[in-house]
């Protein structure tokens, strides 16, 4: 009799520990599950707002490193030097080809 009662208690605990969700057993509380829709909605809303704010902020406010790199590119005219380098390279290849070279 005592064993039967103990077993009944054990099985009721086991049954109470899980709930069925879409035909699959899920823990009744804590641990698993994907959470309430309010929490999910709030999480997605906050995430979207943060991403949008971050991208808009970055579009209009350059970072400190970006500002420093801009000073370097303008000070040393890196942009035109690189463009000039490519122009020279193309010219050199064209000259080489016209002279039937290997490039």
């Amino acid at each position, binding site marked *: 009799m005592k064993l039967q009662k103990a077993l009944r208690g054990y099985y009721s605990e086991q049954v109470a520990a899980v709930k069925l969700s879409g035909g699959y057993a899920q823990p009744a509380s804590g*641990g*698993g*599950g*994907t*959470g*309430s829709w309010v*929490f*999910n909605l709030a*999480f*997605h809303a906050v*995430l979207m707002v943060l*991403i949008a704010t*971050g*991208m808009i*902020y*970055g*579009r209009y*406010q*350059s*970072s*400190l*490193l*970006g*500002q*420093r*790199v*801009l000073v*370097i*590119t*303008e000070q040393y005219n*890196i*942009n035109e030097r*690189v*463009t000039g380098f*490519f122009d020279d390279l193309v010219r050199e290849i064209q000259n080489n080809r016209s002279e039937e070279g290997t490039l």
Partner: protein
Amino acid sequence: MKKSYIVYAVLTVGLFALGVVFAKSTIMIMIDIPSLMLVLAPVILMLLSHYGPKEFVNAFRAAMEKSNSNEHELKNALVFFSTAQKLVIASTAATVFLGIIMILNSIGEGYTDSGKTVAWWMAVDVIAILYAGLLTMVITIPFKSALQKRLNDLKG
């Protein structure tokens, strides 16, 4: 994962910050919001494609020493952090190569404001790699290791 994780994580990041201070620079040089967005947002969005927000919280909780997570939850949390680590690497690679493409695109003749574009993307590229390194070192690797350790302890 012990409670002292936070202390060690702060000390680790602080060590890098100290390097910046020793170089007589400013911590602000390490801050770039678009880099953070381009590295972190794709990771979170792609994880959301197969994990719910509550599962995010549960994955962090499972790694804690005093949590009562079972083997199944620990394995799921381990997969979560392994995926996050791979996604961090992938999103950083995408960001860096996008930056290189944008820089190459802007250094042609007739492109207005190319200096600004070069500077903006160069900063994004460099800081994105820094953030990826920090995220991997401070979050994904320690949590993966803690979860694996807990799984090993469960198996005895």
